[in-house]
């Protein structure tokens, strides 16, 4: 046994805080710019690089991965060193992690406005950046687990469990959702297609929220809130249940993003049920945080750090109540694709993530610079500007979402749609977009106030690193053994309980009830035995695994994988080329495929869905409900998640090509009051025609049944199809060459939803646009 003085590496924490604050401001500013474009479409200044559909992915990526990501790393590096009483295992790995992550962010900031995107939400970055993310994440994981292995504190505190869950689950999600085949250095296609791609994407998308924006921040809450409140967490026992319930249940909830779509019904129901159950552990965590302040509520009035933490937790409670509510199918039928969802996610991002970050920064920065906070009044002003800003934002989005949802569903006494033109609903909610812009502006002003306050704080101090004296005990035996880990009663009881739950799906009701009762009886017996063993002083199973990071990590991984495998595997293994209706999708022509790539490059999916739900109002407005087999060659899927404009799945053949040409150049010429920007550059830029051969060849590798002849004649077929469209336009006074991007885009739009025998060789309609055009 000997004593050792350890100096923590706090310089890495300071770097991550600086990066988080910097990119946070950029992410919010981009958000404000694109919010302004919802009201004033001219705010893209006529340039493609500042247009909403290209900048929206930059906004989400900047806020999630640059702002919250860097904040999370700062919190993890600071608290892990203190909770393990050990310096990070490698300063070099910490440094590679920091600079590597910032390079990834810069690459995203350059590539996304250029339209280099996979079009999969929150995973838009192209394959070279995906590989870089994987490499840097592995560096982070090695450094973290190496530090755990060298720790001087035998217990693993609950915050570390949440970090473990974050590291392994994000790795699994990122790798599976990034299965793609590269076409060029800047372009790839998803290995999955259609419904499979949608399920994988929203399994990833939902759990990016869960394991990037929630679990690490919960870990940070469990460390920093007790520090700021100067009292231990309300119930450590509750935190154990909170952790296991959350990591097990969260992973199942992804399909609630796809309710009423062409996803199999069983997967939708599973997603809905688990989303509802998720309410319990989420609120368990929130209450555990808030009740930590029991006896210290008076300090919340005076201390800006506690103020931000309490408000952050309250927003977490609101968002995790609203999430399950929105996952109920009947609620989703109204709210999905509307601004209600935008309000929901911003309650979480601005309220939960933003305020927890602010609380952590106000607590950490003075300590990292050996000083006190420069201005409490400025921090208070930040708090109120932020709170009022969020309230204005989310209330405006609730009103806009419910209003638009109801208008789109409204029918008259004769059963006809009351608002057949989509743009009427956009005009109706425009005032709410102005309120949202003002609310977001207030939040950004508050954020800038925080930057000023932190800069002033830093100026009054100097960088200091924390130190600790630890007592090193040689050969300290761990409680229990690995055999005890694998034979633990709670482990097998959980497996049994899961088997009984599965009985409700696969067995008859009475067999399932019998199984459930048997599990309850076994549970009671186990409880009695456990109590007796505890009285004899034996270590509990949890104590055994809690001292073994590797066993803990493996069990966490298994908890996460159960939900993922149960949902993804049946859908991925099924032979989706077998259509239920007897008709399946026909592969895109070379020109249509080029147009489809332009559709993803421009981010059209950001505002337009390609998924008609089987709801009366939707089938009346857009046509027959979408079916799974209509998307089997869609690499990637383009179902979208928000409608700022109408659904486009069956837009093919609805309007003449001239209508599309006019609409893309001047949306208000065809749809008075539309907030869509002009995509005038499509009329001047040319497609890379020779690349079509490689595109078809790659699609063949992905399973799209192109013939060798189709591949060989891809270039010529583009010219043929493009010329048909160009000739049609020329007849109406528009001169455009066959290889201009707008022609490929029109070819793709005219193709949508026309898989029942109507092909490009059949003349596109030249009649006037029908009444009720979007």
């Amino acid at each position: 046994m000997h004593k050792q003085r350890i100096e923590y590496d706090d310089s890495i924490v300071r770097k991550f805080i600086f990066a988080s604050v910097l990119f946070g401001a950029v992410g919010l500013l981009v958000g404000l710019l694109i919010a302004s474009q919802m009201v004033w479409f001219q705010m893209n200044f006529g340039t493609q690089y500042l247009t909403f559909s290209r900048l929206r992915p930059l906004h989400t990526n900047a806020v999630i991965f640059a702002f919250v990501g860097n904040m999370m790393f700062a919190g993890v590096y600071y608290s892990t060193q203190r909770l393990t009483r050990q310096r990070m295992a490698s300063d070099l790995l910490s440094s590679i992690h920091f600079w590597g992550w910032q390079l990834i962010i810069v690459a995203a900031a350059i590539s996304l406005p250029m339209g280099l995107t996979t079009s999969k939400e929150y995973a838009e970055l192209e394959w070279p950046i995906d590989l870089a993310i994987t490499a840097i994440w592995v560096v982070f994981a090695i450094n973290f687990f190496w530090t755990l292995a060298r720790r001087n504190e035998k217990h693993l505190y609950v915050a570390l469990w949440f970090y473990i869950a974050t590291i392994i689950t994000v790795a699994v999600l990122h790798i599976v959702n990034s299965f793609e085949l590269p076409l060029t250095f800047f372009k790839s296609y998803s290995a999955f297609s259609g419904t499979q791609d949608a399920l994988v994407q929203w399994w990833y998308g939902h759990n990016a929220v869960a394991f990037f924006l929630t679990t690490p921040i919960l870990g940070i809450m469990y460390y920093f809130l007790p520090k700021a409140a100067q009292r231990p967490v309300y119930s450590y026992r509750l935190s154990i249940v909170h952790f296991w319930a959350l990591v097990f249940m969260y992973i199942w909830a992804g399909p609630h993003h796809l309710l009423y779509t062409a996803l199999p019904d069983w997967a939708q129901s599973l997603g809905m049920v688990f989303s509802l159950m998720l309410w319990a552990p989420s609120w368990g965590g929130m209450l555990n945080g808030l009740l930590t302040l029991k006896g210290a509520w008076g300090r919340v009035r005076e201390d800006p750090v506690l103020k931000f933490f309490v408000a952050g937790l309250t927003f977490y409670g609101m968002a995790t109540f609203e999430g399950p509510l929105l996952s109920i199918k009947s609620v989703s039928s109204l709210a999905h694709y509307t601004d209600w969802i935008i309000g929901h996610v911003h309650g979480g991002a601005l309220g939960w993530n933003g305020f927890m970050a602010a609380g952590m920064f106000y607590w950490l920065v003075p300590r990292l610079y050996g000083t006190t906070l420069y201005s409490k009044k400025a921090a208070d002003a930040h708090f109120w500007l932020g709170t009022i800003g969020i309230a204005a934002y989310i209330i405006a989005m609730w009103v806009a979402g419910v209003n638009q949802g109801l208008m789109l569903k409204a029918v008259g006494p004769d059963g006809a749609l009351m608002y057949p033109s989509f743009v009427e609903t956009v005009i109706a909610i425009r005032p709410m977009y102005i309120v949202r812009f003002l609310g977001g502006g207030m939040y950004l002003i508050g954020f800038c106030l925080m930057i000023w306050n932190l800069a002033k704080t830093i100026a009054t101090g100097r960088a200091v690193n924390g130190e600790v004296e630890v007592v090193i005990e040689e050969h300290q035996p761990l409680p229990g053994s690995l055999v005890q880990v694998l034979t633990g009663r709670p482990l097998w009881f959980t497996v049994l309980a899961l088997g009984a739950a599965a009985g409700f799906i696969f067995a008859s009701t009475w067999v399932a009830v019998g199984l459930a009762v048997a599990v309850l009886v076994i549970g009671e017996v186990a409880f009695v035995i456990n109590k007796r063993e505890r009285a004899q002083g034996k270590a509990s199973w949890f104590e055994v695994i809690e001292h073994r990071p590797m066993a803990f990590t493996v069990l966490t991984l298994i908890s996460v994988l159960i939900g993922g495998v149960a949902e993804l595997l049946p859908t991925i293994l099924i032979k989706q080329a077998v259509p239920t209706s007897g008709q399946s999708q026909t592969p895109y022509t070379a020109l249509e495929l080029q147009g489809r790539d332009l559709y993803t490059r421009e981010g059209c999916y950001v505002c337009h869905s390609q998924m008609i739900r089987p709801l009366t109002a939707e089938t009346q407005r857009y046509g027959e409900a979408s079916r799974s087999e209509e998307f089997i060659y869609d690499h990637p899927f383009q179902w979208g998640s928000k409608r700022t404009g109408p659904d486009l799945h069956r837009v093919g053949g609805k309007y003449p090509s001239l209508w599309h040409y006019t609409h893309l150049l001047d949306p208000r010429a065809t749809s008075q009051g539309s907030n869509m920007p002009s995509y005038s550059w499509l009329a001047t830029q040319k497609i890379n025609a020779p690349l079509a051969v490689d595109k078809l060849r790659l699609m063949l590798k992905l399973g799209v049944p192109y013939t060798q002849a189709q591949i060989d004649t891809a270039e010529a077929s583009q010219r043929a199809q493009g010329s048909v469209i160009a000739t049609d336009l020329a007849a109406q006074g528009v001169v455009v060459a066959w290889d201009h991007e707008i022609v490929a885009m029109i070819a793709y739009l005219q193709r949508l939803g026309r898989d029942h025998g109507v092909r490009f060789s059949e003349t596109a309609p030249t009649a006037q646009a029908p009444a009720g055009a979007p």
Partner: protein
Amino acid sequence: MYRTFYEGMDTLAPMLALLLFGLTFVAIVLRTLVFTRARDVEAVAQLPLIDQSPEARHE
């Protein structure tokens, strides 16, 4: 009215599943907050507070 709504609907399995969920929830709450000895786990909750590093003294 409600009879028409529920007519032909198999309500037994959903009701049993809901009951089971409720019982499990109550069992977990009781197990967590009532039938667990606090001293087994609550000592670990002090970990964030025993930080002795110099910057902690700024509090």
